[in-house]
């Protein structure tokens, strides 16, 4: 083909490897997600708490500020595992809000426009397609979770007058692991639920409902049957408990739930597996033109 001649010519140039096509899915997915102004607004809102946390770290390491705050300052301005647990928890729920907005934009539009037959007729598999979308969502959520968490940790390590980072490496590792588990889970859950709902706004609600409704049911089970196992349906409680353990913090959650780590991990793994099954079923059903 040639624009000025309007004739067809075959392509004889080089061809990219498969991984480049997965990245193309991710790149175009990201562009689609960020084409909405609300995404930018939401992203900025997600970063607002970090400014507060950053300021807190600054104040805690500023002798003048500590002096001004007196006894209250020494209680409030302690930078330890509990502080970073607050950072992680806050950012994780911010990521949840961002995921519930972005995930439907990544996958619902393709399904509504019936784009899968044309997308998957190219040399990319169902797995490659989902992986591309997953990478796009995971990358976005990373920018509001473990990346700023680790940056705050690095700042505290840098600004602290005493050697701090080396003796608190477990906090950094815990934040990284906890955030990655959380965003891996909500990315999969978000994509799976979005693939089953036609309208984006409804999909956003469904993602929240999928977290909160089982949590309510779990609380009822726990209350009525007086068993801790009801908390296995409560994703927020399970994650808080897991984060406590990863950061080495004795949180109040553990006393209430006392769920074994293996049970929490198994439940999270089951949720991921269920999400994968849902995604596979939906995409497989829509990949060909029926006729």
């Amino acid at each position, binding site marked *: *083909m*040639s*624009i000025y001649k*309007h*004739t*067809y*010519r*075959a*392509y*004889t*140039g*080089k*061809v*990219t490897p*498969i991984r*480049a*096509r997965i990245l*193309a*899915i991710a790149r*175009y997915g990201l562009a*689609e997600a960020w*084409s909405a102004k609300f995404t930018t607004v939401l992203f900025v809102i997600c970063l607002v708490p970090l400014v507060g946390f950053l300021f807190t770290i600054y104040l805690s390491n500023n002798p003048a500020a500590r002096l001004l705050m007196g006894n209250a300052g020494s209680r409030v301005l302690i930078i330890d595992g509990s502080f970073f647990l607050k950072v992680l928890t806050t950012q994780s729920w911010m990521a949840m809000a961002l995921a519930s907005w972005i995930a439907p934009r990544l996958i619902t*539009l*393709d399904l509504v*426009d*019936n*784009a*899968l*037959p*044309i*997308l*998957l*007729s*190219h*040399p*990319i*598999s169902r797995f490659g397609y989902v992986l591309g979308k997953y990478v796009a969502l995971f990358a976005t959520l990373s920018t509001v979770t473990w990346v700023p968490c680790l940056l705050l940790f690095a700042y505290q390590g840098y600004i602290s007058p005493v050697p701090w980072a080396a003796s608190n490496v477990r906090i950094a590792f815990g934040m990284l692991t906890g955030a990655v588990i959380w965003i891996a889970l909500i990315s999969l859950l978000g994509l799976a639920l979005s693939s089953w709902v036609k309208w984006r706004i409804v999909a956003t609600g469904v993602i929240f409902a999928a977290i909160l409704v089982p949590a309510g049911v779990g609380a009822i089970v726990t209350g009525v049957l007086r068993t801790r196992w009801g908390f296995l349906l409560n994703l927020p409680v399970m994650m808080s408990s897991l984060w406590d353990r990863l950061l080495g913090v004795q949180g109040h959650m553990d006393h209430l739930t006392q769920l074994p780590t293996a049970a929490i991990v198994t439940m999270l793994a089951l949720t991921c597996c269920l999400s994968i099954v849902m995604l596979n079923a939906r995409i497989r059903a829509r*990949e*060909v*033109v*029926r*006729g």
Partner: protein
Amino acid sequence: MGTIELDALEVRLGGRTILNGLSGVLRGQAIGLLGPNGAGKSTLINTLLGFHRASSGTARIFGLDTYRDRAQIRSGIGYMPENDSFIGNMSGVRFVRFMAELAGLPSAEALERAHEALFYVGLGEVRYRKVNSYSLGMKQLIKLAQALAHGPRLLILDEPTNGLDPIARQRMIQLIQEIRKEGSVRLLISSHLLRDIDETCDEVLILKGGRIADLCNIEEERRSNRSFMELETVGATETFSVSIRGLGCECACFPGGRIKLVLPEHIEARDLYRIASEQKVQIRRMHVRRDSLEDIFLRAMDSEGERSAHVHL
């Protein structure tokens, strides 16, 4: 090696046999895929694209197994689905570029080819508009553009003229004819419209009830019928018919000077003109009857039961 090779291909979906023992080698530059609703056309296309696995037998494109080597095959195929299938929120050029990148073109080349493909199909002026604002005809054309952008070896067009007005249909047919003429792309065109296949294809595969009802080369089929002729004459028709019988032609006379005849192989039309001239008979009209695709299709539908399962050209 044929473009598409089917060897006792059987595809079962949901416990039902959709394609049943298809065998044949398709070698044409442009292959038409015909059949009534439910004949298995879409299933065959999906099988060729590697979406369905053969329950038994094999299907090959350019010698590669359609399921096992589907990634390799898909990089050499351009597919234009029947229904609306696009990302409506993207501009035309961005959509075609995305599809070209998925087919394996580097980003810069994909952009260049996207512009070229859109100009080629006639969407150059609207390439920055969002796809969901396109008319039905434009949507058909952008599906063709994305199928062409990466320079495929085989172009699979599923109902390419579906829903098009006569002018848009003519444009689409012209494009397909140009692509065929260019020669580097093989075409597989599925259509309900016999006329579309007739105008664009040189070989046709007719399916009925998941089986091959006919597989024939349209041109050869027509050539085999070239000896049928109809004449309209003025003058001594009876004497003229006697004379041409003398040449070895079978003929029948009808009122109004009409004669139908079958020419033997060694007799040419000029022999008829010579006899007519000698006998002062005017030949006002000479029509060489060609089997239309409709005749072939209807015959295939009627005689499908008598046909053997294995067909080879």
